[in-house]
């Protein structure tokens, strides 16, 4: 599904990722853990195609295609979804309108039939209930006045609506209390499937208690410095990043 080989990425002229290699197959859930400044969000933005993140070396292949040649909306239409750490507020654009526009844009790009307003509403309502996204939130401007938890739930709702092939979750747990975290984790787990891959980026091990990964990669100073199974998360929690990174050095 995703094949990253020796990836070097520079942001504003400064190299952040310094040779990252990683592979994820369909059906797998991988986690990337790392201290602040290690390049976690850089990887997330790079995969989604944000301007200002430049590949200086190496490659990223998504489902056989060179990701670098695709614009952000093209990546989305091809099933790549990024749940953002800080979802943006867009006053003047209602949530529902936004969802309909995005859904249909993706259908259009794939040559599929677009949905009418009624169908979208029905579709959205169905998925919204499980994530406790209220009708009111759907009518309000996108993310405006939403609490941290509400914003994250809306991100997961979108993931459920767009049915991506590769979902990248960038610190989805940041700023959430236990209850909100559980709800979000349930939503993520509900979307696990043999044809879908997930890349969960997190700083704390907490989320991984609920969204149990198949493999954990430790990112430090722009590179993967350690890898392991789910037990690695506990080891990190107990011993800290420096210890693990030190061990690898």
């Amino acid at each position, binding site marked *: 599904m995703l094949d990253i080989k020796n990836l070097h990425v520079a942001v504003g002229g400064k190299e952040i990722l310094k040779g990252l290699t990683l592979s994820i197959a369909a059906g797998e859930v991988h986690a990337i853990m790392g201290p602040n400044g290690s390049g976690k969000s850089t990887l997330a933005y790079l995969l989604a*195609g944000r*301007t200002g993140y430049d590949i200086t070396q190496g490659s990223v292949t998504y489902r056989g295609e060179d990701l670098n040649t695709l614009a952000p909306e093209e*990546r*989305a239409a091809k099933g790549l979804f990024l749940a953002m750490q800080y979802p*943006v507020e867009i006053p003047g654009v209602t949530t529902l309108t936004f969802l309909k526009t*995005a859904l249909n844009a993706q259908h259009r790009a794939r040559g599929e039939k677009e949905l009418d307003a009624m169908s979208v509403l029905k579709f959205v309502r169905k998925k919204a209930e499980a994530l406790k996204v209220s009708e009111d939130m759907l009518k309000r401007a996108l993310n405006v006045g939403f609490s941290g938890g509400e914003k994250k739930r809306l991100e997961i709702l979108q993931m459920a609506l*767009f049915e991506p092939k590769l979902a990248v979750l960038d610190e989805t747990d940041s700023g959430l209390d236990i209850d909100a975290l559980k709800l979000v984790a349930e939503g993520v787990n509900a979307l696990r499937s043999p044809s879908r891959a997930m890349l969960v980026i997190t700083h704390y091990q907490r989320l991984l208690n609920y969204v149990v990964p198949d493999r954990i990669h430790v990112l430090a100073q722009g590179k993967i410095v350690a890898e392991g199974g789910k037990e690695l998360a506990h080891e990190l929690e107990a011993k800290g990043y420096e210890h693990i990174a030190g061990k690898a050095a």
Partner: protein
Amino acid sequence: MNAPVPNIFADAVDARSLPDWLSQRRADAVATLRTQGVPHRRIEEWKYSDLKTALEPANDSIAATAAWSIENVPTGVTLFDLADLSAAPEWVRAHFGKAAAAETVPAASLALAEGGFALHVARNAVVTEAVRVGLSANGHVRALVVLEDGAGLTLIEQQSAAGAFRNTGVEIVVGANARLTHVRLAQAAPNNVQIEDVAVRVARGGLYRAHLFTGGAELSRLTLRMTLKELGANAELSGVSVLGGSLHADVTTHVYHAAGETQSTQLFKHVAGGKSRAVYQGKITVAKGADKSDSRQTAKALLLGERAEADLKPELEIFADDVKCAHGAAVGDLDADSLFYLRARGIPEQEARNMLLRAFLREAVDDVADEAIRATLWQSVEDALPRAMVSAL
């Protein structure tokens, strides 16, 4: 005494026989024309709108009178045709032409127009049906709107895109606790010169609300001069300008807080594409002793074209200390984070830009309480957007 400044308006002044109550007012206006001349870009207030140059090709419209039409006169509203000034009722005699001599543009319409309309709403009459007035053809035209204490009215002013030159001079008197909602729609009129001066006086507890849509013209200038004369008088202004091609739109406002506990709010959004020019000059004056006044103003502009221009000048002139005044102005591009968010969810770039552009303008239209008016304003925006977006980025 300065020598008179030769100019196109002063030259067009003719002798007229007017009722006594009006002759002095007209004479004052003519005097203004002679001493001030036609504004040009070296006059600070007209820095971004060189009227003199735009009017240079002298033409017949300078002395003509433009046309006006009102479809409906609801109950509670009295309409008086200003063509026959000798029959003017008391409320016309009391107010008409009093605010004209201050500046050249209103002075010109008073001195040269031979017609116009006047509307009166009786004390405590709250009129629910809006009055729609259309202004068209070439020349000058006057208007007077008087709301007695406690009255209420919505006026929808539609400026026709046709007519090479039109100068509209409006005077509005809002009585104590009266409310006027003034909607002005001026669709794009390339090749034409459209100027308008609106002088408003608000009494105790009164409210003047204006919602503007400006599509621009070769030179388009709207001057809104509001005096919040007595305690608790308020003004609420919102407007959008959507320009493309070589259109120009100058919206200049001046709110004068003459008394305490007066409030004013302003929200203006401008979109300039192609090689158009959006201008906003918003001056707020708070007089000495106008304590507990509150004045807020926000003006934002978005440039869509490499050759478009936005000029913003929010001005504050404060002479009282126990007041709250704030203004903000910003020029920017569409927010990059928002753009990325939409694209990352599959919305193609152009469509994403369109969404954000509409979101930007929506804020200035959303606070219009009346749904029908909101829809009309928004329709004007939608109609004007394609031109603004031509050859945009």
